[in-house]
């Protein structure tokens, strides 16, 4: 079994809901994300919300599809694709927020998307924390993640917040660890 999926299973087995902070190296970033999504949608067969700040929806969807992930199980929220006037745009598969700075819209979109999904089991995949840091102040990001973590508890989801392992963000990641149930070091 792939390393990330194995680690996810090992550390979070028997847990129906959790908040995990996954730190990934730049080298394995894409591969690891795909493995985690595959584990959730294929092995656990649960639907979820994928919030992408790192790659545009179209790129992400084609990467996931080509890796054998059933993207029909996922609602995408894209905060990276620039929309006209940075306004909201909706397609059948994705809601385009327009800018990673619009944390209020990201929160509302996530809340609505998660609540629309069947409550038997669902996941939230937040990709990624460090992109958020490029557009927002560290304090704002910390508050947002704290808010997100408490929301994830209310939603009763399997929540994964991904972050690229960077020296500069270590302090924030350490700070955020307290909000999460587990920190996954995924190489």
């Amino acid at each position, binding site marked *: 079994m792939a390393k990330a999926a194995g680690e996810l299973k090992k550390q979070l087995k028997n847990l129906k809901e959790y908040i995990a902070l996954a730190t990934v190296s730049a080298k394995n970033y894409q591969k690891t994300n795909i493995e985690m999504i595959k584990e959730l949608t294929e092995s656990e067969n649960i639907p979820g919300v994928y919030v992408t700040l790192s790659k545009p929806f179209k790129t992400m969807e084609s990467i996931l599809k080509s890796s054998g992930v059933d993207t029909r199980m996922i609602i995408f929220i894209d905060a990276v694709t620039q929309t006209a006037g*940075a306004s909201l745009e909706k397609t*059948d*598969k994705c809601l385009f927020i327009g800018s990673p700075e619009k944390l*209020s819209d990201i929160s509302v979109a996530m809340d609505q998307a998660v609540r*629309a*999904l069947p409550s038997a089991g669902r996941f939230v995949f937040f990709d990624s924390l460090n992109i958020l840091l490029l557009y927002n102040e560290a304090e704002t990001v910390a508050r947002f993640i704290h808010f997100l973590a408490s929301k994830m508890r209310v939603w009763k989801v399997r929540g994964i917040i991904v972050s690229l392992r960077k020296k500069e963000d270590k302090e924030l990641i350490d700070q955020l660890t307290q909000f999460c149930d587990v920190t996954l070091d995924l190489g």
Partner: protein
Amino acid sequence: MAKKILILVELLAIAAGLWAIFKIVTNTEAAVGFVTISFGVLAVIWTVMAVKSLSPGSALRKYVTNFLLCLVFILLFSIWHTLSIIFGWRTTLKEAWLYPGYLFITIAFLIFVATSYQVLMMGREFGFRQQAESIKKVIEEKKKAKKKK
């Protein structure tokens, strides 16, 4: 328990405030005007606080800003209406003095219409029911396929 006591104290404070207004202002219509103005000011303060805490450029902030404008114009209407009662503009001045009040309430309703349209759009954009239905079907399909195997 402490929260319940706090709520009780707040309710008592509101009741005392209302009683004071009706005691000081003997004209009932003017008293009602003061009460609506006080609640309007409170609503405006809370909404301004909400606008400040929302992300710049977000749909939610735009909506709350429009809502704030509605509140401001309704408040202006209430102030104008109360002033007209206190100073007896209906009887002492020309009828034209009452028109700004009507203008305020008309503008408030026009902004309400625009805000409602904005809410309709937000409902469409932030609503994921259709996607959720498709996902449910996919899950069912997968379950059936698993059973067949």
